[in-house]
């Protein structure tokens, strides 16, 4: 291209840009006085603000053995070339960046808007004159932060979800609550802040788990209005939520809101076990909350620990949490409403569920309007519960349509509010277990077991804050001392199960029970040194005969390293019962038959009874008995933290 033509094009292009800009905005650029800027930078350096804890937190610096580095990997987060590893240079470059010319086409791209928390904090510390930096209208931030009307912050907990490994432990997020006295302020429309891995669509579960464990994903804070989470957790994933409203000063709320804005979209490495949602959300709160929410130097972060901690932390001389509110899922609402129906109305309800022509029955027509409204309200929850499992079911969709039409015949009224709520997660047993046991096995051999399990709970644990009748154990290690020898008896990498029990007698409630584990275990109870590595997976069914009495049966498949007469492949039948005598006393009794299919076709049957006594957050006592060709008894004290 000839030089003069290129030049002409360039001129036209630049002129066009100028005219475009003038179509929309006209801002006189207030250029800063460079001597004022130099004075401000000098003061910041003299005050050693680059060493200040707040600066280090705002930039997410983490100290290593001999160095310091920010967790944030996005280059756009830093103003200095070496800003990720040099807090001082980053501070100087940030202050210089605040003096950059304004791009009038996009004022929000100015560093004063992008790093708005840094700007306000530095301004407070350095106390510079108003006119040191150009005035910028951060329109998008103003809109996002409801023009300074965010008055409080809530920490939301979505209970665990066994449909996705990343959700097993539950999930925390933040909600920014606007001033309720202002028109249009509504909790459902509040902004919420979420932290999570940025994963490609269609990632398979194995890749997802491995990359999540070993830092193969980046993660970022993102935002959505709360109604999205509310709908998705409640209706699609059937997860209860809890809202912990935090008792923060306005200046603290403003600081978290500003920092959240500058963190949006900034990428960090994601690890399931530590640098996860629980860790990043607690880190955000620790910008203003002095006491650490998650303990330092612990190699894992669990949402439960965040809620356990915030509910007990004092801040500004008062409890950090001012209120806790339960947000039930569709399933929880359905169960509660159905159970509250009179017995004869339950029959009417079940008849309608079976055939909506029963809306024309004498039994339904004889109900009062209030009874009909209660029944239809329950039917709305029931149909949504069913559609959450099979969203295309034409039968359920037709039932729902009929229910909606019936409801239109009745007077308007608000849906009945749920009365009461289960105990919140922070009242549940803490997740990290250390246990010591004294036992005896055949031939009067006494042993002592030492057990640790970083997370989370088992079938005997109290249900508070957990999915009832399920287990989730990760990283369990059991060391046995016997005859002056220490042996690693069991090493459970991963052990998850759910009985998936129906809580009502309605069709579609409940499902197949399932289990999966992977790790090292001992082949038999009477051998001292017979560890095998393997996996066990099973499908089954569990039924609640009474709220305190559950029976279950499983068919399991086992693949393991062969040991002695036992081959590497086996099938197992397992049946048992769980009896909850009281909150503080639960018992599991089960019998299993295992058939090995290679190396001699060995056969093994096992009978086991385990009991938990106590339902405290921090301890329980357990007593167990096992028979497998010989006897084993064990008494344990468990401490949870």
């Amino acid at each position, binding site marked *: 291209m000839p030089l003069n033509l290129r030049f002409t094009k360039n001129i036209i292009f630049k002129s066009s840009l100028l*005219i475009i800009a003038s179509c929309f905005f006209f801002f006189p650029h207030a250029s800063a006085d460079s001597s004022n800027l130099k004075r401000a930078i000098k003061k910041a350096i003299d005050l050693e603000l680059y060493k200040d804890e707040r600066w280090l937190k705002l930039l997410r610096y983490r100290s290593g053995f001999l160095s310091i580095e920010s967790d944030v990997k996005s280059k756009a987060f830093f103003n200095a070339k070496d800003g990720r590893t040099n807090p001082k240079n980053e501070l100087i470059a940030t202050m210089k960046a605040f003096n950059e010319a304004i791009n009038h086409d996009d004022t929000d791209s100015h560093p004063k808007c992008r790093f708005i928390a840094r700007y306000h904090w530095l301004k407070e510390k350095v106390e510079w004159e108003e006119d040191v930096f150009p005035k910028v209208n951060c329109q998008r931030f103003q809109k996002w932060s409801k023009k300074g009307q965010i008055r409080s912050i809530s920490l939301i907990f979505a209970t665990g979800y066994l449909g996705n490994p990343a959700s097993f432990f539950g999930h925390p997020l933040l909600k920014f609550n606007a001033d309720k006295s202002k028109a249009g302020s509504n909790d459902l429309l509040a902004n919420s802040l979420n932290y999570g891995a*940025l994963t490609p669509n*269609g990632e398979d579960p194995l890749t997802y788990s491995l990359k999540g464990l070993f830092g193969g994903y980046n993660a970022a804070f993102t935002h959505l209005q709360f*109604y999205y989470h509310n709908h998705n957790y409640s209706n699609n994933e059937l997860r209860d939520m809890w809202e912990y409203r935090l008792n923060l000063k306005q200046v603290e709320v403003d600081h978290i809101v500003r920092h959240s804005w500058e963190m949006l979209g900034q990428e960090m490495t994601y690890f399931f076990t530590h640098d996860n949602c629980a860790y990043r959300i607690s880190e955000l709160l620790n910008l203003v909350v002095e006491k650490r929410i998650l303990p330092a130097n612990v190699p894992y972060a669990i949402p439960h620990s965040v809620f356990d901690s915030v509910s007990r932390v004092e801040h500004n001389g008062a409890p950090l949490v001012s209120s806790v509110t339960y947000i039930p899922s569709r399933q929880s609402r359905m169960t509660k409403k159905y159970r509250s129906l009179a017995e004869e109305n339950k029959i009417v309800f079940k008849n309608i569920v079976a055939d909506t022509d029963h809306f024309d029955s004498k039994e339904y027509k004889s109900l009062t309007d209030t009874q009909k409204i209660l029944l239809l309200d329950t039917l709305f929850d029931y149909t949504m519960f069913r559609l959450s499992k099979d969203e295309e079911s034409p039968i359920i*969709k037709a039932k729902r349509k009929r229910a909606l*039409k019936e409801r*239109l015949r009745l007077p308007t009224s608000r849906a009945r509010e749920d009365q009461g709520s289960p105990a919140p997660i922070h009242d549940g047993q803490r997740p990290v277990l250390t246990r010591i046991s004294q036992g005896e096995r055949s031939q009067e051999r006494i042993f002592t077991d030492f057990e640790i399990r970083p997370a989370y709970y088992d079938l005997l644990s109290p249900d508070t804050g957990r999915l009832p009748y399920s287990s989730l154990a990760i990283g369990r290690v059991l060391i046995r001392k016997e005859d002056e020898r220490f042996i690693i008896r069991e090493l459970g990498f991963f052990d998850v199960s759910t009985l998936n029990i129906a809580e009502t007698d309605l069709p579609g409630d409940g499902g197949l029970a399932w289990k999966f584990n992977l790790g090292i275990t001992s082949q038999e109870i009477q051998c001292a040194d017979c560890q095998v590595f393997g996996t066990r997976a099973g499908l089954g069914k569990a039924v609640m005969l009474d709220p305190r009495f559950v029976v279950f049966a499983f068919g399991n498949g086992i693949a393991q390293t062969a040991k002695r007469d036992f081959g590497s492949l086996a099938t197992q039948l397992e049946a048992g019962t769980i009896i909850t005598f009281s909150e503080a006393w639960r018992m599991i009794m089960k019998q299993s038959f295992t058939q090995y299919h290679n190396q001699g076709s060995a056969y093994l049957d096992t009978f086991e009874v385990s009991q938990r006594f106590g339902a405290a957050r921090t301890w329980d006592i357990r007593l167990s008995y096992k028979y497998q060709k010989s006897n084993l008894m064990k008494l344990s004290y468990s401490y949870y933290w």
Partner: protein
Amino acid sequence: MRKVYGMFLVFAVCIFSTTAQARNVWRECGIGGMLFTNTGWAAITSNIIWDLGTSATSSDISSDGLCEGPKVSAANFVHGTYATIEEQTVMGQGDHLVAMLDILGCERSAHDKIIQSVRTDFSKDIARPGYESLEAIEKTKNYHTNLMNKIEGNFTSQCHLI
């Protein structure tokens, strides 16, 4: 010629914001493309990822003028919570209806009348054969159209963002 072309380009950009409203927000703003359905294994996203563009739209801070504003926000809200909106409309009350009308800047004192008015037309929608089999986006579109017709027809003085 090039200068004329350049000026035309400038003019086109200048008037973009005024023609934007005439474009199809349903097709162009991604309403319905958002992840509001139960996605099975992909529900992984519920916990951990959101496309930042989607987030921006749903949080009402999209930079494209077409997809901004209360009408689009209300459409996103209805689509994202349709099952609850549907239930609360037949009940005649509920927190989601309040939020929906808050988005449109409707005075709280006018909510009952607006809902009653929408409920009447909604009953006709539900009564139509095949209502239950409509795609979620179609249901949203019908509901939103009904709502906006009511508001723009009878409640403009009570709904200040329209």
